[in-house]
């Protein structure tokens, strides 16, 4: 089955009187600040057009796909279309072998981090109208490609598991105690951003250090440890234990503060800041006069 699609790239947008006419008051009201206006404008430009995407293809066991290549798809644009929508359309309408992970479509399952126009992004929360065409969609760099856009996540999971990613308590209350541990709203706020991680792997893929040092824990795992280390409910002794894990050779000290992880995080987690804060904690612990 051919992956090349019939509709030529240069096709003119069909006349659409509704789009060209004055906008209804309801539509006007729909829009708000400048950002949203801009997006609406870009969308209006694309209405009736097709979007040109170039998708990375590879399958180790299928002839013709063993050598990586890019396939072109021209997908009819619809309002609000995301990168994920575009590959889903290409798969369902043109080539059912096009393979990628996806599930929730709302940026919480973390399945669909791709390398889109040279940057790690979540397919489901990236509006295609914001991107320059043709849109290049590739698997996450620095990870082994299983097939098409699917990468092997095992190494990422291993690193996440390496930081003892579970709550630990000095006097572990038994489950039948019907009293919660107290936590101040401020302390809860402190760990809020770190707790938003959806394990998408975008940060790890963007990190130069992780690319060169396979044992580096990486931003996501360190952030996971941050969530527990900064949680007052765990107590000082466990915090020290966590810092010992983090200050090992392939831990926090490897970070060179390039901010690439922070830049690509789809949940806006200040990963670099969290790593630096843990470095400071580790220094404080080791310098007794601090």
């Amino acid at each position: 089955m051919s992956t090349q699609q019939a509709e030529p790239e240069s096709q003119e947008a069909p006349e659409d009187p509704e789009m060209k006419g004055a906008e209804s008051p309801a539509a006007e009201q729909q829009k708000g600040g400048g950002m949203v206006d801009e997006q609406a404008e870009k969308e209006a430009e694309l209405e009736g057009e097709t979007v040109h995407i170039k998708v990375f293809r590879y399958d180790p066991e299928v002839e013709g796909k063993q050598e990586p290549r890019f396939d072109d798809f021209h997908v009819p644009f619809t309002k609000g279309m995301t990168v994920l929508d575009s590959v889903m359309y290409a798969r369902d309408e043109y080539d059912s072998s096009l393979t990628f992970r996806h599930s929730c479509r709302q940026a919480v399952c973390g399945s669909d981090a791709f390398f889109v126009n040279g940057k790690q992004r979540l397919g489901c929360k990236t509006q295609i109208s914001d991107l320059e065409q043709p849109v290049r969609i590739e698997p996450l760099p620095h990870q082994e490609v299983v097939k098409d856009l699917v990468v092997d996540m095992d190494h990422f999971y291993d690193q996440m598991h390496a930081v003892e990613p579970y709550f630990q308590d000095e006097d572990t209350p038994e489950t039948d105690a019907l009293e919660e541990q107290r936590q101040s709203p401020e302390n809860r706020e402190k760990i809020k951003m770190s707790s938003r991680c959806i394990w998408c792997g975008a940060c790890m893929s963007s990190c130069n250090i992780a690319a060169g040092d396979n044992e580096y824990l990486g931003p996501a795992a360190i952030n996971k440890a941050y969530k527990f280390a900064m949680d007052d409910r765990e107590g000082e002794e466990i915090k020290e234990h966590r810092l010992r894990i983090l200050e090992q050779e392939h831990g926090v000290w490897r970070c060179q503060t390039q901010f690439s992880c922070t830049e690509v995080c789809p949940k806006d987690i200040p990963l670099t800041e969290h790593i630096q804060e843990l470095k400071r904690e580790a220094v404080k612990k080791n310098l007794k006069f601090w």
Partner: protein
Amino acid sequence: MYEHDVIVVGAGGAGLRAAIAAHEAGADVAMVTKLHPVRSHTGAAEGGINAALQEGDDWELHAYDTMKGSDYLGDAPAVETLAQDAPEETINLEHWGMPFSREEDGRVSQRPFGGLSYPRTTYAGAETGHHLLHTMYEQVVKRGIQVYDEWYVMNMATTDEPDPNDRECHGVVAYDVQSGKIEGFKANQGVVLATGGPGQAFDHTTNAVSCTGDGHAMAYRAGAPLEDMEFIQFHPTSLPSTGVLISEGVRGEGGILYNSEGERFMFEHGYANNSGELASRDVVARAELTEVDEGRGVEDEYVHLDMRHLGEDRIMDRLENILHLAEDFEGVDGLVEPMPVKPGQHYAMGGIEVDENGQTCVDGLYAAGECACVSVHGGNRLGGNALPELIVFGKRAGRHAAGDDLGEPKIRTGYGDDVEDETETELPVAPGEAGLDTTGGVAADGGVTADPEGILERTVETARERVDRLMDKEDGVQHAEIRAKLQQAMTDYVNVFRTEEGVKKALEIIRECRQEYQDVYVDDPSRTFNTDLQQTIETRNLIDVAESIALGALVRDEFRGAHWRKEHQERKDEEWLKHTLISWDDGEPSIFYRPVILEGQNKTYEPKERSY
């Protein structure tokens, strides 16, 4: 072949809780999931966990609200178990480190939710499910519980005695998505299905792409009846273009619904004079669509949900996630303008028939969470009652499967002397298997033999043959076409407002889908990460589940909870205080009814008019 004491299928909230409980009860437990656990759709739950934690609140009030919300179709023993166990289970999550939102004194916060007589919804921002999912996965990691991630379970290894009550489940057959390898998983003690909802049977849904009703369909074909499938919750506030959910928390915090004329219609048009926006979900969903049908919808499609008056501080503190969702998926800034919302398929109240211990009528087969029907939600689920169900009944199913004695259940399962056969309704087309040969055609599925010794090996063989047939077939119909047709039919005809004619039309289209499925083929020739194959198998499951929903919607000629019928706009307690059960019967489904249990520990829940 792999072998464990307890196999948990699915690793969302219910599955994780079941696995932890089975492990704590001493069993060797393994989880098999088609995703990785943290990808599960529990993570998308926003609102919260209902639990009577505070002084002044009481489990009996929670049970009463739940029973009223269910429109008196919840079974009291299940509803009371939920209300009694939710506080302990919620505190347990806190002890596992779940980052709940907090009050100034450091206690966990609770907020009002629709249909609740007390603000008892515990939450963690507007991302409660995300935190619940990750917290429990952390506990699974801590315990070293084995997880087979990205293994897709295709079939149950169940013996094939004529009466499902005599059958035994000995394991499951799954294939490794990454390599295509098909293997048997032997369960020495039990299999717990925790596969989530069937939302993908509909076109406009808040559910993930992975919510394909796999557990429903596999249990159904193995002999466990599906219960109350006609009761589908349409959430009143989903974004129109994508179906992305906007939490009930917005209305809980004071968000207001307006029609295109700027009227606060919940009050001004008398839909819920006391509770307004916080009426039960089915009430609000019908109100919105009535506004649209009567010409007061915005762009003839949706209504507005306004939270601007709450102020930026409160929104950022409690509903920040909503701002991101509205902006990323609808291009709307919730701080400066109202958000467009319309009802979207959200939740299935019905599911695999189980008792309070999570057990089906098939020995060794359990179900918990959204794929199960205990039933706590009856005709309509209250917001904030899904997450406690996962942890309360996930735990019970896991413990029971591992051999813990939880006492004799009060709820009965399977065909028995307490049921009544459906005899009246005329079906437009015969439901069930479309092929003449249920084991030889491309659509082959179902149990294979009554011999418990070789059952797993034989089921693995059948699964391999089935995959080979799908892969070897050179042309035909592709699953995406069938799936799209099915989803459209369900959203067109088995939605919030249902008519006899419409539901019959849906059954006819479902029949067509079944017939087309006889000719389905998988185009992708690869064994590596073949999502074409996986989705083809899922589509078969969706057809079975969609059919059961439509059948239930046709036979129940009354209006109860989320199920509304144009020709029958009143609740008929004389006739319909009973559950709808659909049994696969080796490809020729039959329908029967079991009375609802309204007798609780201390009182009987007398059906009253449900007004808000």
